[in-house]
């Protein structure tokens, strides 16, 4: 082999790559980048009005057995109105990228999840997730494949890049890797072991944003979690937004757009769409309602009661918010004010 560059001292002196280790975990969603390209080519690039209700978006774009993902961090910017609707329609057998608190807890509590690429499901300050425990310890969630938080974000990044894997230095040496679907190889440039994480292409992604126009040009204020990467790693993407704005508002500050319209299939207007989670600069967490869920989730019967009251007995997000009342919601805005324009 003709080498024109000097060989670094540690590079392996052979022409085949050596696989050092492989995780035992299933590759729940294999990274078919060619199919993804073809899918993206076929997607409409027209700037059309994609507004619809939660009910229509969920009915049209999510089906049983789909691989879905929600983008959020902790109880911040959770797509709760969309998740309520998935529960309302009882779309089950879902495979889920598991980084979450309230919304994945609801899906688990409703028994809709069969397989997890899991990084963190818990209740943060309130401790372990009761629903995760019940569903995994009983075997109703059939597969738990382990990753780190950045591992999942990097898997989305690989999909967003349009490549089948990404080399990273997280997860090495741990049981997290052993129970993942990662592969460790000897790096062809340094000779050191490096983890390859498979791209994760979602059937459906759900992201809640601060504002979007009718066609799905979406902007997020504050930290962006992994919205940029995940939005680009979805076959279908449902956006819910606190506020729908004119496209001219987007065009005035295009540098603020995290998610361009051509990625988006549905746009749902959902003020307080993250409730009882928070939305930076707009409203704070509803601590009382979060505690109500934490308590209810401790037992299957009270979990079912909670879902009945806050999901099944209300036909849509507007009726859900009416359970709390304007005065109560307005108070949640108070601690979140103060964003410099």
């Amino acid at each position, binding site marked *: 082999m003709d080498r024109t560059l000097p060989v670094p001292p540690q590079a392996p002196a052979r022409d085949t790559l050596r696989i050092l280790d492989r995780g035992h975990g299933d590759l729940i969603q294999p990274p078919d980048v060619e199919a993804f390209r073809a899918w993206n080519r076929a997607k409409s690039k027209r700037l059309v009005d994609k507004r619809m209700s939660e009910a229509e978006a969920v009915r049209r774009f999510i089906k049983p057995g789909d691989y879905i993902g929600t983008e*959020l*961090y*902790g*109880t*911040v*910017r959770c797509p709760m109105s969309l998740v309520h609707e998935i529960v309302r329609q009882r779309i089950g057998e879902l495979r889920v990228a*598991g*980084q979450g608190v309230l919304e994945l807890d609801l899906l688990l509590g409703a028994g809709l999840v069969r397989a997890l690429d*899991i*990084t*963190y*499901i*818990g209740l*943060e*300050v309130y401790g*372990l997730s009761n629903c*995760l*425990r019940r569903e*995994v*310890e009983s*075997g109703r969630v059939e597969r*738990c494949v*382990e990753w*780190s*938080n*950045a*591992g999942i*974000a*990097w898997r989305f*990044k690989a999909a967003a890049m349009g490549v089948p894997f990404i080399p990273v*230095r*997280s*997860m*090495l*040496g*741990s*049981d*997290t890797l052993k*129970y993942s679907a990662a592969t*460790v190889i000897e*790096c062809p440039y340094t000779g*050191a*072991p490096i*983890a390859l994480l498979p791209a994760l292409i979602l059937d459906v992604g759900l992201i809640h944003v601060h504002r979007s126009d009718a066609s799905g040009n979406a902007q997020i204020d*504050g*930290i*962006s*979690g*992994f*919205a*940029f*990467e995940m939005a680009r790693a979805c076959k279908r993407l449902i956006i819910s937004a606190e506020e729908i704005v004119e496209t001219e508002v987007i065009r005035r500050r295009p540098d603020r757009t995290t998610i361009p319209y051509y990625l988006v299939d549905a746009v749902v207007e959902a003020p307080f769409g993250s409730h009882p*989670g*928070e939305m*930076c*600069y707009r409203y*704070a*967490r509803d*601590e009382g309602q979060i505690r109500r869920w934490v308590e209810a989730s401790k037992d299957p019967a009270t979990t079912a009661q909670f879902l009945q009251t806050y999901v099944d007995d209300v036909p849509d997000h507007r009726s859900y918010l009416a359970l709390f009342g304007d005065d109560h919601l307005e108070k949640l805005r108070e601690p*979140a004010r103060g964003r410099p324009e």
Partner: protein
Amino acid sequence: MSDPPYNSSELLICTAARLMEDGTTAFIGTGIPMLAAALAQRLHAPNLVPVFEFGGTGAILETLPLAVGGGCTFNRAVAASGIRDIVETAQRGFVEYGFLGGAQIDAYGNLNTTVIGEHDHPKVRLPGSGGGNDVGSHAWRTIAIMPHDRKRFVHHVDFITTPGYLTGPGARERTGLPRGTGPYRVVTTLAVLGFEQVSKRMQLLATQPGVTVDEVAENTSFELLLADHVGQNPPPTPEELRLLREEIDAEHLYI
């Protein structure tokens, strides 16, 4: 002996805060590390740069977030980006300290936050890695904070969620983890521990106020190495406790 004028959370927070250096970067999670960072910023480390994994860099910790991505994690921050940028920054070597917790820790500082029992048929399913594995892989020095008892300080963790020194000297480097990284301190309700240079095993550095060396050993399942001189930590000062109770966590959410 009468009860001390502080509880175990306050003790952990004050002990951890004293380990936070001014003018450096530290991965901060919610809970005790967050309170410790807020306390350190008000005392000896006004230029501590808290790094929150979901995107906040350099926040001024005036109020407490309950969520790892809450608005306070980028309050008056110098940058608000996302998780990938933050962990890539750590992967490039920019983040000095990382604070961790866990249900179990072993003598090499390996941490478990994934399962108790077998992975595929767990007795208790815990949350999983979250950012723990990333912090434990990339921060130069990690500090674990946990209550101290035999159930937590075990011979073998049921699952290595976050790598410590794995099986001993050189093991991290052999698996490809960044060179020169690893566990630095373990702050507990009974002691502050470090890791012996050669064996990379946990070593008792100092006991908490009123705690004896024997008590620490009795509450540890594995054999504990002792530093040549085992110190005694001073108790939380009245000023530390005042700041914690009146300013940092006035609503007593954590303390």
